[in-house]
């Protein structure tokens, strides 16, 4: 028999999670095999706890104890003198434990199955609440993060403009520390602010592209300029970016896409895109007669805002929810949608539901026109909607349920065996899209990869 251990190792049921100190102190003195044994016991205790907590663990605590007893048995096989260290379960209990092993493992199995079933979409990651600002986060950024996480500011363009405006404030208040240059230090100062924004809500492609451009401008700023002048140069560059890539681009798109709307057309749009809103208002202002069908859906139900704006302007509108699309699609002349971002292969990443609208339109030979500025272009290719997506927080955040539906008939929280997922985005494959209207022209989806080339010429 091997020499007895020189210290007390904890008994079979394993040290509870809240006692790391005693175990850790002695871990240095434990040999490798003893550490392994300790690990196994801890794992067994955790599994026992999980099995005990499983909703269909009818066997309850008895199975948990036997499970841990069973887990204690393998430690015997290591050949270590665990007799002295751990209380070995008496042989009778081992047999009973093994007899019930089937049931215990079944409870364990179903607990694992339940956990696995809900793991399928686990990489989505639920939005975490914004923690208290650590480090020195500028108040403008803190306020912006709060607005993002409560969805007060939504939409790719709106978020990008808000971010850049907030950064202007931050840069204005920034002071270059001694022995450092603005071009090198400002970016490290901005990084935690950016992370704070990302923690509030995952960054949009537009924000990403804008920040990349900002980084380029900062690192290219002249070292010899006095600080305020360098900052002014940066402000001018930010303003130019917003003006050229967003505002003026939108104006060009308004005109180009507006030409696609003829008198008597029925235009269908989904949810709320700021660009499409501008296109429709402009087309109406230039005297064209058309009517609009606004299709809307949970979780955000943004179409109602668009509806209010359009009907205020005097456009004849029809409103319906997404499932009703099949009944009206045969009467539609053109579908106009916006985008969150557009990828090299021509796929459009947009509000969840856009893919359904585009697919139905394609099936009924209705042209699908995507209005998208070039700064939304993203180099990487996504193959499906899971690669990168965002889940909306649970509950009735957007008051999107009808008032005449009593709340007790709705499921608003997760329950055992029931999980609620509200993906906010989806990917429309290029085969469903007829054309993409950008400020550099009307492009078919399979030629989207040429946008950087077109931009290089500007």
């Amino acid at each position: 028999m091997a020499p007895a251990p020189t210290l007390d190792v904890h008994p079979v049921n394993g040290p509870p999670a809240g006692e790391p100190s005693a175990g850790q102190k002695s871990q240095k003195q434990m040999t490798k095999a003893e550490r392994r044994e300790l690990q196994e016991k801890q794992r067994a205790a955790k599994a026992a706890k999980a099995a005990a907590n499983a909703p269909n663990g009818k066997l309850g605590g008895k199975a948990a104890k036997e499970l841990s007893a069973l887990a204690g048995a393998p430690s015997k096989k290591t050949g270590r003198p665990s007799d002295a260290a751990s209380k070995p379960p008496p042989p009778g209990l081992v047999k009973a434990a093994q007899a019930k092993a089937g049931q215990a493992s079944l409870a364990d199995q179903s607990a694992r199955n339940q956990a696995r079933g809900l793991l399928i979409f686990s990489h989505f990651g639920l939005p975490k609440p914004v923690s208290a600002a650590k480090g020195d986060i500028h108040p403008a950024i803190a306020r912006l993060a709060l607005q993002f996480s409560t969805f007060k500011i939504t939409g790719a363009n709106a978020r990008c403009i808000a971010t850049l405006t907030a950064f202007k404030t931050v840069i204005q208040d920034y002071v270059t520390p001694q022995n450092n240059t603005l071009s090198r230090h400002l970016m490290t100062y901005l990084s935690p602010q950016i992370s704070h924004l990302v923690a509030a809500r995952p960054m949009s492609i537009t924000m990403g592209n804008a920040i990349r451009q900002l980084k380029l401008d900062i690192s290219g700023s002249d070292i010899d300029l006095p600080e305020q002048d360098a900052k002014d140069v940066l402000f001018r560059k930010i303003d130019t970016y917003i003006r050229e890539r967003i505002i003026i681009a939108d104006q060009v798109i308004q005109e180009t896409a507006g030409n696609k709307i003829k008198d008597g057309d029925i235009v269908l749009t989904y949810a709320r895109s700021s660009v499409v809103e501008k296109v429709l208002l402009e087309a109406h202002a230039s005297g064209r007669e058309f009517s609009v069908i606004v299709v809307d859906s949970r979780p955000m139900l943004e179409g109602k805002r668009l509806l209010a704006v359009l009907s205020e302007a005097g456009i004849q509108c029809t409103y319906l929810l997404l499932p009703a699309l099949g009944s009206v699609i045969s009467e539609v002349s053109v579908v106009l949608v916006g985008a969150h971002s557009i990828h090299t292969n021509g796929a459009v990443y947009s509000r969840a539901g856009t893919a359904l609208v585009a697919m139905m339109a394609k099936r009924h030979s209705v042209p699908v026109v995507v209005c998208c500025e070039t700064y939304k272009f993203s180099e990487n290719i996504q193959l499906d909607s899971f690669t990168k997506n965002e889940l909306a927080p649970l509950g009735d955040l957007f008051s999107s349920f009808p008032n005449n539906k009593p709340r007790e008939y709705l499921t608003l929280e997760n329950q055992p065996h029931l999980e609620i997922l509200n993906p906010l985005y989806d990917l429309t494959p290029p085969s469903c899209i007829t054309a993409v209207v950008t400020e550099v022209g009307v492009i078919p989806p399979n030629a989207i990869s040429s946008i950087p080339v077109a931009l290089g010429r500007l």
Partner: protein
Amino acid sequence: MAPDPTPIPGHKAVETLVAKLRRRQIVGSRQAALETVLVLRQVVSKARFSNIQQLIVIIREAGRRLVEAQPKEHTVGNTVRRVLHNIREEYHSAVKVSAPTSSRNVYTISKFVLQGQPRKQTVGAPKSETTATLKEDDPDDPDSFARGIKPILMEAIQDVLDELETVYDNVSKTAKDHIHSDEIILTIGHSRTVEAFLKSAGHTRNYTVIVAETAPSYSGHDMARALSAAGISTFLVPDSSIYAIMSRVNKIILGAHAILANGGLVAITGSLLAATAARAHSTPVVVCAGQFKLTPLWNLYHDYGALDFADPSSVLGFEEGKLVERVDVVNPYYDYVGPELVDVFITNDGDHPPSSVYRLIKETYDDDDHEL
């Protein structure tokens, strides 16, 4: 509605059901079918007739009133047709018991001409022994025919009732063959047939169900709660993400409101989106429905008027203020899904592809009853 000059026997029961149907107080197609059968049973038991034709006229009259009360509830008409078909079958087998039935399952032209349509091979032996003494239009005792044949007819109607009551069990019989372990199934709305199907598979298989909410009725919430209470891992997603998750779904299972004669179906709104998205991803589309949903009509989808519209306030309510008066709201309750989008119908009578639905209809109903 103008009052009918000749009151049909048992008309009180018929009128009660008509009122309930018109006010949409009956929830669910199976419930409507059950109540229709009970009412017809009362009508037949109180009916006075001296030949089978008179009885058929009575039943058709009752059926027409019921169908007119709620034309969109197809199961009412289907049940009437089913009862008529069964009654005719029983009558033919009872009367022809003396003559050896040479009407096997041979579809010859002469049979078509004589009988009008292929009839399902009925069991040779009649159901009761008193049939030999049936005599129609007896001038001395006009009720003898009715008395003699009523027990048989009651059994025929009881058959229909039994079939309706065991629909869920029969549909769920093949559940575990269709659903494999670790599959991800998508369903929409709250169909009781689909719920029974999934629960029965859940006893033996471990799989996941994704339920789409189905705005604006949000019946998906009820379905998700029912399934998760039965221990099946369930996800509840809004309708907007149907296309997004379709790439991970192994098959979709839909319920039907009615199955049309061309193999298409009328189902809750949103079914067309789900079925089309499934086609785009080559995902099999399975429809679970009882046979009482088979409807001999098929050109119901050509007009806008074929749709049933529900209350618009669940889409845009009065709390929106001025919007309500300026905006049109469309809230159809049903969708038409074409036969090219469906892969299989699982009914209580077995599995059928959409291309053979017309044959099922020919076997279940009589041609004369298509228009009640």
